[in-house]
């Protein structure tokens, strides 16, 4: 791995390591770190302060807001900074629900959303809202037809993610947006995995609310944004001071906001270029992995994020696979990072109909620009050996797939 954008800020490049867990998080780009340091030290003022140091911070935030707005085709006044993708999703769902409860109590989402959407929805159900969790097909796609039939008179929100974090499947967002608009229902999309991979245009796509998170595109952790279309009725989630046009209180995380602004600019400027490289690596990996017997690709073969590979190896279990990869210097995830330390099996693969007995042998490799084709070759050399080793160890493996 070459974290080629971090030299000079104290990074030791360990050439033996291969980081393929970019959907979990990414390293912060060198230029971004440099920008951030300036706002931690010299320009440390509170943006609400009236003096020069305060104004410098205020301007830095507004500059970052412009960049975020530009990256998704929104107006500046429609961008609100938050503490990350999770807060953005919570705000969108709870905020729309509470503000529009006298218009209706019904919300539609999908069964493969990130937990920050699903658990916010479950909480909202406890507040006497009704939530429909749309099923998906085996590729993880929501059906626009099923969405249409799920709409009721009192549906106030449709929240469908732009692309899935585990299997990379990209939803027909524009079509969903059109359906929402025609039915005068707010449309929120979780685009946390999408920024830097797919060009976003909230206007063209009829999106009313969109969540994004800095650390998924080489920006800082602990900072995200929620796009809220002008005129949207939404309640505040975090109350207090007058920050963020009185909609999100708390002293602004100026360094992180500056970093997020820079990172989103770099990431969206490079989409075409980086996707070309990522597609090549992704497809080599998929082609290579699929030659391992009893191995299945999860997610959609083409409607998928450029950096996502998710496969199932029958007869083996994910954690032991990850640990063995780790021992060989390959960093990956099983399903979503959030769950790898817990015992749950993937709700996404379950929703896609993957059989429970093989669901636990899933592996997600998520690429970034620090990866090279050499990394791909290395993974394709090491992974089959490990899979075989674990299959030899497993009581579930039929004799024909054993080498021992």
């Amino acid at each position: 791995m070459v974290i080629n954008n971090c030299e000079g800020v104290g990074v030791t490049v360990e050439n033996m390591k291969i980081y393929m867990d970019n959907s979990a998080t990414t390293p912060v780009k060198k230029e971004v770190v440099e920008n951030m340091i300036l706002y931690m030290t010299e320009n440390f003022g509170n943006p609400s302060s009236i003096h020069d140091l305060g104004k410098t911070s205020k301007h830095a935030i507004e500059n970052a807001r412009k960049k975020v707005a530009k990256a998704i085709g929104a107006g500046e006044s429609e961008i609100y900074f938050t503490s990350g993708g999770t807060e953005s999703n919570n705000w969108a769902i709870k905020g729309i629900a509470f503000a529009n409860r006298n218009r209706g109590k019904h919300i539609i989402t999908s069964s493969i959303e990130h937990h920050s959407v699903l658990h916010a929805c479950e909480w909202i159900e406890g507040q006497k809202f009704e939530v429909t969790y749309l099923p998906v097909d085996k590729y993880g796609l929501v059906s626009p037809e099923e969405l249409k039939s799920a709409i009721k008179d009192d549906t106030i929100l449709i929240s469908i993610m732009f692309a899935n974090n585990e299997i990379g499947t990209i939803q027909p967002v524009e079509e969903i947006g059109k359906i929402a608009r025609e039915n005068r229902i707010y449309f929120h999309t979780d685009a946390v995995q999408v920024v830097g991979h797919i060009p976003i245009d909230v206007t063209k796509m009829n999106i009313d609310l969109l969540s994004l998170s800095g650390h998924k595109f080489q920006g800082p952790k602990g900072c995200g944004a929620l796009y809220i279309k002008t005129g949207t009725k939404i309640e505040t989630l975090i109350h207090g001071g007058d920050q963020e046009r009185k909609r999100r209180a708390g002293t602004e995380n100026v360094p992180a906001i500056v970093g997020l602004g820079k990172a989103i600019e770099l990431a969206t400027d490079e989409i075409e270029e980086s996707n070309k490289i990522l597609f090549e690596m992704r497809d080599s990996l998929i082609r290579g992995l699929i030659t391992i017997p009893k191995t299945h690709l999860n997610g959609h073969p083409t409607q998928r994020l450029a950096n996502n590979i998710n496969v199932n190896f029958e007869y083996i279990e994910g954690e032991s696979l990850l640990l063995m990869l780790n021992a060989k210097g390959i960093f990956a995830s099983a399903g979503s990072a959030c769950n790898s330390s817990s015992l749950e099996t993937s709700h996404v693969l379950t929703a896609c109909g993957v059989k429970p007995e093989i669901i636990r042998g899933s592996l997600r490799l998520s690429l970034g620009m620090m990866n090279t084709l050499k990394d791909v070759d290395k993974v394709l050399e090491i992974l089959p050996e490990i899979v075989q080793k674990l299959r030899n160890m497993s009581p579930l493996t039929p004799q024909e797939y054993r080498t021992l």
Partner: protein
Amino acid sequence: MDYSAKVMDHFLNPRNMGSIENSDGIGEVGNAKCGDVMKIFLKIEGDRITEVKFQTFGCGAAIASSSMATELIKGKTLEEAWRLSNKAVAEALDGLPPIKVHCSMLAEEAIHEAINDHIRKKGLEPWID
């Protein structure tokens, strides 16, 4: 979740991995749908375990527990092996993370199953905890 060096050693270099062709007792416990699966093969002479192998489908802790448990019962009498507790397995591994302690349970259960399989084959009443 942190594994001890001992766990990692037994995970990466499992002892007694494999199967025994004409084994005298086999115990298989667990369920792939919602947990780990562990299979223990015993070769028994008199009341003594002379050989033991395992196959495991599961996480690092499950594999390391299998490896350690088989090490601990090799050469022991059936009674001694029966008394091997999951706690002893976990301790021999320098501890397991709290959410992984159940994996060492599985080893204890698989051993009990294998011993009882042997006992049943001999037409005797299976032992009870």
